[in-house]
């Protein structure tokens, strides 16, 4: 209420600034058109490059993290326990690192239930994994035995989607194996294979499913069974070696990993730590796009500024008249700021349209590569930023126009 009156006044007085700005732009259609096209090219480049890089990054992340947990929780690593140094003295030791035997996470059910309470986690899945051999006749292959809780593991890797043959099932005598392993051992769905985890712990299981994750290392080594079977084979009755987590915002993984580490005292690693190379690549890509965007935006801003600088000189006489007719410096300032904003708005609206079409074209042409999604919020922010950039670009010329000496401007013919 308090501001209603001054706001109303501003609205009333802005009315004429709008009109003059629009008329000035319409009065010089060619110039207005050309600069709008220039701005729109800049905006289109920004939209397209951003969408392309974002699509590329999402694609890379999907490919990498599709077959990985975001956060892994393992039992605390074993280290040497040293006796305390005698008072006032230093201990000089030569340590040899401890062998890390398979270890179960203490009270893992409680940890799992505690983690289930966190809304940010989309999946908490127990896993018991250890080395073993798979044998079919005389063919042997070293494998990673994966004991899973099938319902929960679905949230980590949706194995159903990767099945090449057979069905999704793990159980006392059912295993699923990777396609490469199936080839190496000459196995097909329905065949039997012998699992050997050493120390005479053996089992014969039936292959019920063959999957292909698309990562050779995994396809040649992973053998899925249920928790119980794996516990028996790996001699960890009732235990698990790992809790796998998926998180809603993957870039929050490291932050939460640190929190869980403090909370549980266990060994916690996020994908960001284990894939630091990827993260590096992603962030340098982001930086490159950022650079391109900044430079394109700069060239657009200078484009608008130079056009308006010329237009301000062309309008010297009009500015003088407007001042003589009672127009204030602020009004002249606003007329030219509005022109800058309007050019930014019109140009970027056109540019966003062009960028959008480019993206659609890309999507239909390269369907096999990956699909770029365009967020409406990104288009909107491109328009808003361009409009603001237009106003900023107009600042210098507009100030100059406002400060024209009306007595001199009037003489200008």
């Amino acid at each position, binding site marked *: 209420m308090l501001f209603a009156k001054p706001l109303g006044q501003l*609205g*009333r*007085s*802005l*009315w*004429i600034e709008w*009109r*003059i700005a629009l*008329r*000035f732009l*319409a*009065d010089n259609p060619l110039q207005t058109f050309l600069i709008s096209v220039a701005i729109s090219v800049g905006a289109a480049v920004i939209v397209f490059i951003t969408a392309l890089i974002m699509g590329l990054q999402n694609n890379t992340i999907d490919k990498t993290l599709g077959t990985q947990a975001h956060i892994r929780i393992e039992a605390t690593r074993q280290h040497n326990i040293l006796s305390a140094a005698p008072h006032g003295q230093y201990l000089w030791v030569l340590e040899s690192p401890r062998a890390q035997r398979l270890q179960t996470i203490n009270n893992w059910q409680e940890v799992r239930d505690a983690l289930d309470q966190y809304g940010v986690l989309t999946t908490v899945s127990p896993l018991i994994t250890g080395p073993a051999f798979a044998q079919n006749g005389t063919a042997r292959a070293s494998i990673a035995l994966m004991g899973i809780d099938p319902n929960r593991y679905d949230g980590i890797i949706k194995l159903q989607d990767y099945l090449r043959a057979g069905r999704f099932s793990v159980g006392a005598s059912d295993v699923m194996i990777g396609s490469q392993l199936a080839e190496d051992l000459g196995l097909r769905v329905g065949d039997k294979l012998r699992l050997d985890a050493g120390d005479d712990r053996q089992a014969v299981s039936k292959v019920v499913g063959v999957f292909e994750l698309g990562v050779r290392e995994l396809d040649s080594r992973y053998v899925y069974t249920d928790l119980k079977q794996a516990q028996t084979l790996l001699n960890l009755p009732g235990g698990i070696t790992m809790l796998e987590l998926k998180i809603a915002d993957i870039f929050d993984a490291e932050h939460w990993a640190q929190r869980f580490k403090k909370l549980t005292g266990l060994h916690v690693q996020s994908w960001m730590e284990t894939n630091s190379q990827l993260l590096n690549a992603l962030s340098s890509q982001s930086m490159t796009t950022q650079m391109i965007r900044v430079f394109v935006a700069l060239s657009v801003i200078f484009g608008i500024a130079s056009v308006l600088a010329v237009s301000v000189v062309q309008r010297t*006489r*009009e500015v*003088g*008249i*407007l*001042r*003589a*007719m*009672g*127009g*204030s*410096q602020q*009004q002249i300032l606003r007329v030219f700021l509005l022109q800058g904003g309007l050019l930014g708005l019109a140009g970027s609206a056109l540019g966003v349209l062009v960028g959008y079409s480019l993206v659609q074209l890309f999507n239909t042409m390269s369907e096999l590569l990956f699909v770029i999604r365009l967020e409406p919020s990104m288009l909107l922010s491109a328009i808003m930023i361009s409009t603001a950039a237009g106003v900023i670009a107009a600042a210098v010329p507009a100030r100059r126009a406002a400060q024209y*000496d*009306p*007595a001199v401007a*009037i003489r200008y*013919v």
Partner: protein
Amino acid sequence: MSNSQLTVSQITGQAVLQLDKLNKIFNADTPLQNHVLHDVSLRVCPSELVALVGTSGSGKSTLLNMMGLLDVSTSGELRIQGHLIQGMSEQQRTQLRSESIGFVFQFHHLISAFSVLDNVLMPLMLRFGKPSKEQIEYAEHLLNEVGLSNYIAQSTSRLSGGQQQRVAIARALVTRPALVLADEPTGNLDTQTADEVFALFERFNVEHQCAIVIVTHDPRLSARCPRTIRLTDGRIVYDGPSADLPSVFTVTP
């Protein structure tokens, strides 16, 4: 309007415009220093019609710009309707100009991006924003009075010089100003058109009760104003009834 009436208002009424020892020096304290106005003092009362004459370069436009608050003096005092200008901010001067002063220039100075009607309404729109119905009607009324009622919606570039100057006169009057300043409004027109345009000034001077200061090189027209002020090299050398202007001055160089 007779001289005796003017004298009465000069004594009793408050001056619309009052100048005391006004000086203007361009580029002061530089090698290009140019002292254009020297101790100019004068009073203009409501509904006076004053001709401002002088040779080219004598400082008429400079003086008019100062009266219209488009330019500031180097020293001296200037009052518009009793308000002292010296010490006012740029914003205050703009407001006073928008409330009290109407301008007409030699080169009509219309804005070609706008229609005839919008040009006339411009001073009102700059001051109040979107024009009201009454304001539009008044602008149309003024255009009718200057004989341009058929051109209201047209672009100004299609009008002749005389017609454009009439639009400029309507524009100067639309805010009902107390003071109208005209800088060689007929300088660009042929004799007959100049007479017609000047007749408009005479008419509005009476009908709208506004003081008008008109710069002109044309002795026929200045003779039709009750009062003449003559500038020579930035000094007032004559200020009085036009009829009494020494004949030595009436020859335009």
